[in-house]
């Protein structure tokens, strides 16, 4: 055959398109997921630009006095302070924005660590099988059977808390689901001929896992990690609410709720906003996760 006659056939397209672009096109058709995605983007931008959005206030300084209330502590909403002031006279709007930084970071970072650790164990367990698989999976079962919340409470009261200790404590308990998912994917992927082809080329197990198995098992991991973000935000809020998470004066949605509960009857607005923020954010992550699940569904793909 001369080099000029190439075989034709297959799908003719003007340009190549990657798997991820197709996924995004399908996601765009999912209305609730797209609304959630835009909401989350705005929320993240608000957390990033918390400083400029605080109208000259900051979450740590005590306001000396406000014109519309006799005392600055627990003052209701007014000009310059859209959500009022908390029990120590700090601007609640500013604290909500900065608290979002903490809550979202904890949600994202814990999910990321959980997914990475889960991927690591899942790949090794599924690829090597045998005794390695058994040990890792029994350890995973053991972790899953632990009562998470009481243990988190105990752990975070022993290693007292900055942002990073909270992240550490939550991450310990957030990798098992991903590990199981990935192991299952790998068990089916390693039977496929492209894994065998990789071995025939002489690839090392590490390279096979990194180049072939991991990218092909990412879809369920992304869904699981997105859904886990909302769970992690709730864990952080719970621990902070119990006084074991993020400590004052650093704001987080959880410890704002904790501070507000004493004044539920006298200043109810202080409770509403962090509560609503947690509720809406976790809902949005769940909707986005569902949309991603549909967009990544391999039965629709190809």
């Amino acid at each position: 055959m001369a080099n000029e006659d190439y075989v034709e056939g297959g799908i003719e397209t003007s340009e190549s398109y990657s798997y991820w672009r197709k996924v995004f096109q399908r996601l765009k058709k999912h209305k609730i997921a797209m609304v959630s995605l835009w909401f989350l983007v705005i929320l993240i931008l608000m957390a990033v630009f918390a400083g400029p959005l605080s109208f000259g206030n900051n979450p740590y300084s005590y306001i000396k006095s406000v014109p519309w209330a006799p005392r600055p502590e627990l003052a209701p909403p007014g000009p310059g302070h859209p959500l009022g002031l908390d029990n120590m006279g700090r601007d609640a709007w500013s604290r909500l924005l900065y608290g979002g930084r903490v809550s979202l970071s904890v949600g994202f970072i814990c999910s990321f660590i959980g997914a990475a650790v889960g991927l690591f164990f899942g790949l090794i367990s599924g690829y090597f099988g045998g005794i390695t698989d058994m040990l890792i999976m029994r350890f995973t079962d053991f972790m899953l059977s632990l009562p998470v919340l009481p243990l988190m409470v105990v752990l975070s009261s022993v290693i007292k808390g900055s942002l990073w200790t909270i992240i550490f404590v939550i991450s310990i308990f957030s990798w098992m689901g991903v590990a199981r998912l990935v192991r299952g994917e790998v068990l089916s992927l390693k039977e496929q001929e492209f894994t065998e082809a990789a071995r025939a080329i002489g690839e090392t197990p590490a390279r096979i896992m990194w180049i072939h198995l991991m990218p092909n098992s990412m879809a369920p991991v992304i869904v699981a990690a997105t859904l886990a973000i909302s769970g992690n935000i709730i864990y952080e809020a719970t621990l902070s609410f119990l006084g074991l998470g993020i400590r004052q004066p650093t704001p987080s949605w959880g410890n704002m709720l904790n501070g507000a509960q004493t004044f539920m009857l006298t200043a109810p607005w202080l409770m509403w906003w962090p509560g609503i923020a947690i509720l809406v954010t976790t809902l949005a992550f769940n909707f986005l996760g569902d949309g991603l699940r549909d967009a990544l569904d391999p039965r629709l793909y190809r």
Partner: protein
Amino acid sequence: MSEFKDKKIILEVKNLKKYFPVLGGVFSRPVAWVKAVDDVSFHIYEGETFSLVGESGSGKTTTGKTILKLHEPTSGHILFEGKDISNYSPSEMRPLRRDMQIIFQDPYGSLNPRLPVGEIIREPLAVHKIGTKKEQEERVVEIMKLVGLRPEYLHRYPHEFSGGQRQRIGIARAVVLNPKFIVADEPVSALDASIQAQVLNLLLELQQKLALTYLFIAHNLAVVRHVSDRIGVMYLGKLMEVADTKELFDNPLHPYTQALLSAIPIPDPDVKKERIILQGDIPSPINPPSGCPFRTRCMYAKDICAEKTPPLVDIGDGHYVACHFVKKGGKVEYSKS
């Protein structure tokens, strides 16, 4: 016959066995063994195409993959260019992978759906650290041209190609390292008839250009006749007959080979031929028949067939047959029982 008589042997397989465990019970212990390849010996000369044919489940694919150490052999020896590689570890095998490659049957399952075609073909070069990245990319373009793929398609993903094109990608991946020996595991059986010929001709053309030796695995005798120099007929993990292609088709001596050949349609309505129809199915390789594995379906079977396993013997001129009733010189002594 043998223009190959004085040729160099590139691969020799001696008494190769591959048993797969059937796990069962509480502790996942092997309760039985699937004898996928059971005492197979043959050799392949440099530059030839040696074909393995047989029904599904006869162990031909397992033989091919075991030779490349994709399966660990249960026992026996594999000699590649004189070196016994049967006990080589994966890291000892790695440098040899440059010389021994495989083309897979399934053009869909054998390509990673998340890698663009250029990366799939470059992967072997990257693994063996051959040249700089730029040199590797040039080599990929060169190979794509060689197998008849547009180099512009470098950045496309496997799902954007047809079955025939995908098989060309698989072939490009196998030849990019300039191997000496390639196992072609039913490379055309998943393709449309019109595409089969194109891919077969590509394989033959590459064999000429790159001086390749093929172990060609197939179940379609017409395809095999077209490409092979010598043929081995497998049944239930054992070789029944090995001969030159012409010799095998003109003078099949094993009853199983005769049955297989009688199944090839003749494109002439006036020719009446005797069709040998085998009764029943291929027996389970977990519990194969005693003695000759083919005896349960053989119309000439006698008592001796159940008692003794016939060895694969050279009856002259490189024609090997495993049957109690075929003697030296091709003298046949079987009769209907």
